[in-house]
């Protein structure tokens, strides 16, 4: 006898591989969706765990971003103080001021007269007696240089070098240390949030991976039968991958909700802080791109968890 099939007249045979692949995906997605609805409470708890894990680092990064945005908008941009040589006269100082004004990136230059500076200094420090005993004013004329707000740290350093090279300038003081400190603080906040994200992501993968492991164990019989009758690991794994994907994406939605509520609660204290720096209150809030990013990240982590869990547990299930 031949390889001829019995009753070969019925049907036309399987789909082409690509079409079968799409069909299998659609079926697996559908089955996973139905399974999610079958156990709403336990799935909700898993989604909540993922939501909390993603919301915490998102909050940190949101606040760091809001603070940094405020720093960039500070209305007193960093200032350079030019101390001129002691021999420079007021007229010469005025000429140097003109020179500085012509440099690119300069918003304003104030000439501070040495006598007025001394008067202000003595008034502020209460050291009148000491200065009266001096025969001459020890202070030079000075220039206060206000660069444009768009000049960044690197540009300021360059400006400091350029201005220092002018004749008659003895010293340039860049007054930006407090800004650097604040920047360093928000950088720290951002880095902490990133590290927290990595730790939380690992937590999500392990938690969701374990939940999916239970799902795989519960369907052991089905996996064995699938493998016995010609289904590969890919076929058996697919519904679990979709479960991971859906749970993760819903976790992302949950994270957006939690984060949104938390930002609303943090609104008042954060703005109070900004007001202390004479800043216009700017509310850190959940933006659509964050929502999208959280959902994509949740879905990605869900998929990774499912893959790792299936690789670890599902491939081990072999028919006896």
């Amino acid at each position, binding site marked *: 006898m031949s390889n001829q099939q*019995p009753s070969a007249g019925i049907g036309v045979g399987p789909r082409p591989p690509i079409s079968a692949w799409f069909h299998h995906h659609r079926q697996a997605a559908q089955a996973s969706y139905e399974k999610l609805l079958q156990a709403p409470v336990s799935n909700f708890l898993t989604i909540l765990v993922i939501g909390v894990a993603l919301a915490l680092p998102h909050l940190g990064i949101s606040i760091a971003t809001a603070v940094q945005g405020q720093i960039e908008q500070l209305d007193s941009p960093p200032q350079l103080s030019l101390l001129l040589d002691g021999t420079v006269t007021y007229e010469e100082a005025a000429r140097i001021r003109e020179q500085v004004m012509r440099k690119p990136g300069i918003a304003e230059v104030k000439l501070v007269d040495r006598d007025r500076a001394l008067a202000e200094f003595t008034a502020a420090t209460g050291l009148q007696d000491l200065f009266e005993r001096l025969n001459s004013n020890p202070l030079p004329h000075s220039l206060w240089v206000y660069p444009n707000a768009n000049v960044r740290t690197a540009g300021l350093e360059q400006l400091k070098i350029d201005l220092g090279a002018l004749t008659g300038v003895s010293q340039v003081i860049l007054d930006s240390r407090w800004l650097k400190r604040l920047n360093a603080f928000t950088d720290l906040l951002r880095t902490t949030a990133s590290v927290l994200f990595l730790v939380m992501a690992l937590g999500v993968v392990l938690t969701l991976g374990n939940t999916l492991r239970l799902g795989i164990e519960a369907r052991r019989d089905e996996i064995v039968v699938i493998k*016995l009758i010609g289904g590969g690991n890919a076929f058996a794994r697919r519904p679990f991958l979709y479960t991971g994907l859906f749970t993760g994406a819903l976790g992302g939605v949950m994270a957006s909700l939690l984060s949104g509520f938390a930002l609303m609660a943090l609104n008042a204290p954060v703005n109070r802080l900004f007001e202390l720096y004479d800043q216009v209150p700017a509310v850190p809030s959940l933006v659509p791109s964050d929502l999208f990013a959280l959902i994509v990240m949740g879905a990605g982590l869900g998929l990774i968890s499912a893959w790792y869990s299936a690789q670890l547990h599902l491939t081990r299930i072999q028919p006896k």
Partner: protein
Amino acid sequence: MDVVFSRVGKRFGKRDALADLSFELQSGEMAFLTGHSGAGKSTLLRLLLLLERASSGDIDVGGRPLSKIKPSGIAKYRRDFGVVFQDHQLLSDRSVYHNVALPLEIAGFTQRDINRRVRAALDKVGLLGRERANPDTLSGGEQQRVGIARAVVARPKILIADEPTGNLDPQLSAEIMGLFSAFNSVGVTVIVASHDLALISRMSHRILTLDKGSLITVGDSQRGRD
């Protein structure tokens, strides 16, 4: 598809489950595999399904040496087989219809094709009216027939059954064996492992007898072929 075993051995630890086993089954032939429990019947079927690899010798199926099939190719290789188990291995979380449809879904058949083929397979085993039933609500004989419908629904080239009548009374057993004969008569190669000598000796098919992992009779390859 023909099946050729050449000096096949399978060793588990220090025990030979199968030793120096050689036989040939032509395409479209039906054979019974018999012997005491532990004689190696299941091991032989497991080697054929690539649930185990032979320790020595060669197995060729349809002219293809099994040693050349990589782990990633095993699933596809198994789609040429229909397998009937003693304990049916039906899934109780879905209906009879969906149990039988599973091999077709794996192979990627269209829904229209699946409908027609599942109904045709259930019709052949006499269970057309029970599509929506849960397998757990069926009798032992009915469950076994669902298992057979699932094994034949994708029109395998080789049908394998491991003690398919183990838990059934003689009359039901004869009916089940009759079904296998019917599939064989339309060209499917059939291998049935059974220790029910009284039943299988009444049927005019070749009988391979195993004892302690060795083949002691290979039967007559021409019997049942006329």
